[in-house]
């Protein structure tokens, strides 16, 4: 692994029949980086991410995540990463505390660890009154916060977030990004897909995927300079339009 890069992707491709969802992409993500993975709907972001977290087999190319090959060492990859998906992924018919216990348990945490971690999490998110309520009864923004915290339980090196802030208000989104930053400061690598271009501004570096290919990859500042525009939104529109 060369100087602190934690994700290496080389010529990664995924095809479904005739359709190429991810077309020969290559990039690296550094340790502790907040990496924005942008693209329109259907550009192939989620498919690419699923290959990196070991739940989808690449058609060709290779990728290493946290030092493990996603093809041959998928289960080892899974130990080193946390994942929170676009589709809300806690059990609605379990309480917050039960969800924490369950996911802690299947990651193989000790009982005493699960207890202390649950308590810390509930303290941190200030959910004392809600801890024993069913997740299904919570507002979406809270669910997302809990889901994010649960994905951190086993202390992963990298956290993959697939459109984590979909469907919530700007204030909640802002708070969610504060949580992301806290983890990044602790040295965790954040790999996040999003539709919101204002969120792209928060990232250290962003890649923009269009029709299965990575069309641009740089810091938000450099991208804006390169395309001579004011915001990431305009960068995105320019790129997406050029292709069409």
């Amino acid at each position, binding site marked *: 692994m060369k100087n602190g890069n934690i994700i290496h992707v080389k010529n990664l491709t995924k095809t479904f029949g005739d359709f190429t969802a991810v077309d020969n992409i290559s990039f690296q993500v550094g340790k502790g980086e907040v990496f924005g993975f942008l693209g329109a709907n259907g550009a192939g972001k989620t498919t690419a991410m699923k290959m990196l*977290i*070991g*739940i*989808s*087999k690449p058609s060709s190319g290779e990728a290493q995540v946290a030092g493990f090959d996603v093809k041959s060492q*998928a*289960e*080892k990859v*899974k*130990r080193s*990463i946390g*994942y929170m*998906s676009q*589709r*809300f*992924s*806690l*059990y*609605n*018919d*379990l309480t917050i505390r*039960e969800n924490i*216990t*369950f*996911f802690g*348990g*299947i*990651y*193989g945490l000790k009982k005493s660890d699960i207890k202390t971690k649950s308590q810390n999490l509930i303290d941190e998110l200030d959910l004392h009154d809600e801890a024993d309520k069913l997740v299904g009864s919570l507002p979406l923004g809270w669910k997302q916060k809990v889901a994010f915290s649960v994905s951190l339980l086993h202390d992963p090196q990298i956290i993959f977030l697939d459109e984590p802030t979909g469907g919530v208000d700007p204030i909640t989104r802002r708070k969610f990004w504060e949580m992301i930053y806290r983890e990044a400061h602790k040295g965790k690598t954040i790999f996040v897909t999003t539709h919101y271009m204002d969120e792209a501004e928060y990232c250290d570096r962003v890649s923009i995927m269009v029709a299965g290919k990575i069309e641009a990859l740089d810091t938000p500042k450099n991208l804006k300079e390169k395309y001579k525009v004011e915001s990431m939104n305009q960068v995105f529109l320019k790129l997406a339009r050029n292709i069409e």
Partner: protein
Amino acid sequence: MILELKMNTIRYIIQKEFKQIFRNKAMLPIIFVLPLIQLAILANAATFEVKNIKFGYIDNDKTSLSRELIEKFNASTYFNVLTDFPSHIIADADMLEGQVDVVLEIPLHFERNLLKEKKTDLSVRINAIDGAAAGVENVYVNRIVQQFNQKVRTELLLVGENINKLQNIATIPSFWYNETLNYKTFMVPGILVLLVTMITLFLSGMNIVREKEIGTLEQINVTPIKKYQFIIGKLFPFLILGLVLLTVGLIIAKLLFDIPIVGSILLMYGYSIIYILVILGMGLFISNFTDTQQQAMFIAWFFMVIFILMSGLFTPIESMPNWAQVLTEFNPIKYYVQVMRMVMLKGAGFSDIYQQLLKTLAYALIMNALAVYSYKKVT
């Protein structure tokens, strides 16, 4: 230490499944109450006894002997004597409409022929749309006519006859294992099998696919959980549920229907555990292959119907065509019905059922291996 960790992971899944089952306020009564209602209804209704046969007659003779014959039918509990048809044309029309099942026609000069020529003919018409029932009805009619025949011979025809000619051979059947020929005794163990099978197959069949639908399966798949841990964790709660259901069913069978339980309870539960594992493995296998609960339900029903109808529960396997009999070898319900009947009614021991036991065990291993294999963490 490592083994302990693996067991722990399974324990967390089991815990979670139980919580979800007991939290689902709509499902719990469906799981426990509906099957028991079914047991109460089916045990009384699912009978092969042919009773209340709609019986009509055409009496062209109208003598004391002909009336005596009809009286015999009247006295029988199997026949519901409905009408005296004036002609067979009307009788035929009524049979076409389903008003009558059996029509007996007594010819003119019935009494005279019987007394003078010592023989006469009767005509019997039976609605044979249900062939099995028609066969049984024919036997009943014959038996009554024979009894009548014998009585007539002893009472009227003996004058001048050689008494030695009358042979008095009577068979006295003794019915084993179900002395009173009670259909409930025969049916209830089988119906119990159905209930346990249906509930466990449907619940397990819909379980994993449900997690697929709501998206939590993806979250499970990103964890380093082992495939077999996941499947065992899913199996165990439904195994317990199936056994509880069996227990409640057995208690009802005993209290409500007074079904004998002659054999070893331990053996019955031992076999039941292996059997339920077959069904659960099958359910999880279906669940892994489908994308929606609806699909899973349809496939589960498909197998359920074939398994039930080819289990020997409602129709004897011996009377199926050869190819169908071969197919029943792969029917786990068939073995369970056999074992439950043998153990409950005959008191069969381990050596009597070990063949079924071995086959079921092999089935359980195969189905669960398939369930583990078909669960794909990577697509």
